[in-house]
């Protein structure tokens, strides 16, 4: 099977959906011709679809999402790009108080087919206000679908589904994954939202991981084989609504749960999964639940600091050994 990068997979998804449906369009800063986006995800799309459908916007995040929401009210299907997750806070009012609520408040009579695409995570050089992982913020808001793809194949299939979805979606990419290559089918395919995937089977510990942490978990799983510790790595892909069943089934098998994410530990996705499993599967747990997450601290610039603050392969290995009792 051919291999393409995460960024190419995302671009392909958008290109295919825009060719398929002329109401799909994109808006964001610097996404248009001759630049193709801060992370080059939209490179070439402006040339193919023109300046109106790959719309360069003023520097105004609340405006970008607000205008996307308005256009969705009259039949368009916008993909709004917010360059950095850290800036989504500028659009949070329109997301919280209009975008996520309008479908409910109108009893479903209004569709809100908006995809807000953004990216998060550390990459060694971005610093404290350009590296944050804030999926928990959106997970907490009722009415939003929140997706974090970890591979090129997942990114393409999930984004296509997200674009066809009539409810608002927050699609969270990872800046450290854009250049990563992976197998992606050349045939058209969609990945359903709200369904987790078992990325690796194992009998000892259920590891629920998201975004780049999935790769870290898989790397740790390889290494731990030598110690006869077998991780089952589950990638929820959609954290809201969450596929609880897959996670609980796995915990019923392994008896141990670890959640790994790059966001800060306090009030994060891990806390949510831990609460759910405690509520619904406590009898199956042989050990306390572990969350491997970032320190509750800003992420200073540079690899040394990032590696200190953010959870890595070693942290997952360390946590696994503790869970097994070594």
């Amino acid at each position: 099977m051919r291999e393409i990068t995460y960024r190419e997979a995302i671009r392909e998804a958008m290109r295919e959906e825009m060719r398929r449906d002329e109401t799909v369009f994109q808006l964001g800063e610097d996404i248009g011709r001759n630049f193709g986006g801060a992370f080059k995800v939209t490179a070439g799309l402006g040339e193919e679809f023109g300046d109106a459908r790959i719309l360069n916007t003023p520097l105004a995040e609340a405006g970008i999402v607000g205008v996307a929401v308005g256009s969705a009210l009259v039949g368009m299907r916008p993909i709004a790009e917010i360059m950095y997750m850290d800036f989504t806070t500028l659009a949070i009012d329109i997301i919280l108080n209009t975008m996520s609520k309008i479908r409910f408040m109108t009893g479903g009579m209004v569709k809100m087919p908006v995809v807000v695409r953004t990216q998060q995570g550390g990459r060694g050089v971005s610093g404290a206000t350009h590296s944050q992982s804030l999926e928990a913020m959106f997970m907490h808001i009722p009415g939003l679908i929140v997706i974090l793809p970890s591979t090129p194949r997942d990114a393409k299939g999930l984004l296509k589904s997200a674009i066809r979805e009539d409810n608002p979606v927050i699609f969270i990419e990872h800046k450290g994954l854009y250049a990563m290559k992976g197998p992606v089918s050349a045939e058209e395919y969609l990945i359903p939202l709200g369904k987790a995937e078992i990325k690796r089977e194992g009998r000892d510990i259920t590891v629920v991981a998201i975004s780049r942490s999935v790769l870290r978990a898989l790397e740790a799983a390889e290494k731990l084989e030598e110690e006869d510790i077998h991780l089952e790595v589950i990638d929820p892909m959609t954290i809201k609504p969450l596929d609880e069943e897959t996670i609980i089934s796995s915990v019923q098998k392994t008896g141990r749960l670890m959640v790994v994410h790059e966001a800060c530990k306090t009030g994060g996705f891990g806390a949510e999964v831990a609460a759910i499993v405690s509520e619904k599967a406590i009898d199956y747990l042989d050990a306390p639940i572990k969350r491997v997450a970032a320190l509750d601290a800003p992420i200073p610039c540079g690899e040394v600091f990032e590696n200190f603050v953010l959870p890595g392969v070693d942290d997952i290995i360390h946590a696994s050994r503790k869970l097994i009792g070594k």
Partner: protein
Amino acid sequence: MEISKRKLKELYIVMKKCRMHEERAVIEYRKGNICGNVHSAIGQEAIATAVCSFLNEDDYVFPSHRGYCGFIARGARLDKLWAEMCGRETGYAGGRGGSLHPVALDRNIPFVPGTVGSQVVLASGVGLGFKMRNLKRVAVAFFGDGATTTGAFHEGVSFAAAFDLPVVFVCENNQYEESTHWKYWCKLDKLAERASGYGIPGVSVDGNDVEAVAEVAEEAIKRAREGKGPTLIEGLTYRILGHHMGDTGYSYRSKEEIEEWKKKDPINNLYHRLLQAKAISEKENQEIEAKISEELDEAVRFALESPVMNPERCFRNTVYFGWEISLNKV
């Protein structure tokens, strides 16, 4: 452009309906029948009435939280509007919105946002959608003086100016943001001057002179529809009552000022003009009032006889429309 006597009379009737609706809202609120608060627009009926009278059926309107005049001027159904205001199942939004978040999808009023200023950026978005789909339709956002300092206003107008969107921005400057007078922060003589900051036309008129508003509204809507871009209209007006039903409006405004503005009542003044021009008679006026009164009685009766939606039904499959949410709080 002179507005014909016939049209002025039509505007008068709409304003009268707005006023009587607003007065009834106060009465029903005091009886405890309204779900939520009432942000009364008594005194500012002329602006929305005039602007909406030039819109087509398929244009879009985003009223503010003080926006029932926009609903009525667009011909929203009184029964469904009142049922919504009273939080009943038969309301425009099934009672979910209540008095603060009515909608009227049949009149292309999709949402009344809770955060001041959002309506500006939403209207721009609708304008973008119209432009992208090559539709000769217009979006109008109504907002107060307070909204003009919000980020959402700034960003919404910036987008509309950047892309020549078919939008009209209408500021109902009633001079107070809750209890704060606009001159407290505003270094401009007129809010319409903000328009020059975006490179779009801005015009300021007496918001209680329905004819003056009508003239500039017609122009602005035509401009937008022809693809020439947005306009900022400022209508200077006044709200006679407080910010909402919990506020008398007396602690930050003098009785003299309020009395002064009562004399500038847009409906009264127009009535006397029409009377003098023999475009209306006292008897006819009484008939108009009686008809509106009957309509309102019907609507209120319908609302109060309607049930509140069963909460379970309200939340089943409505948040995601494809995913259920747990209805278990334990």
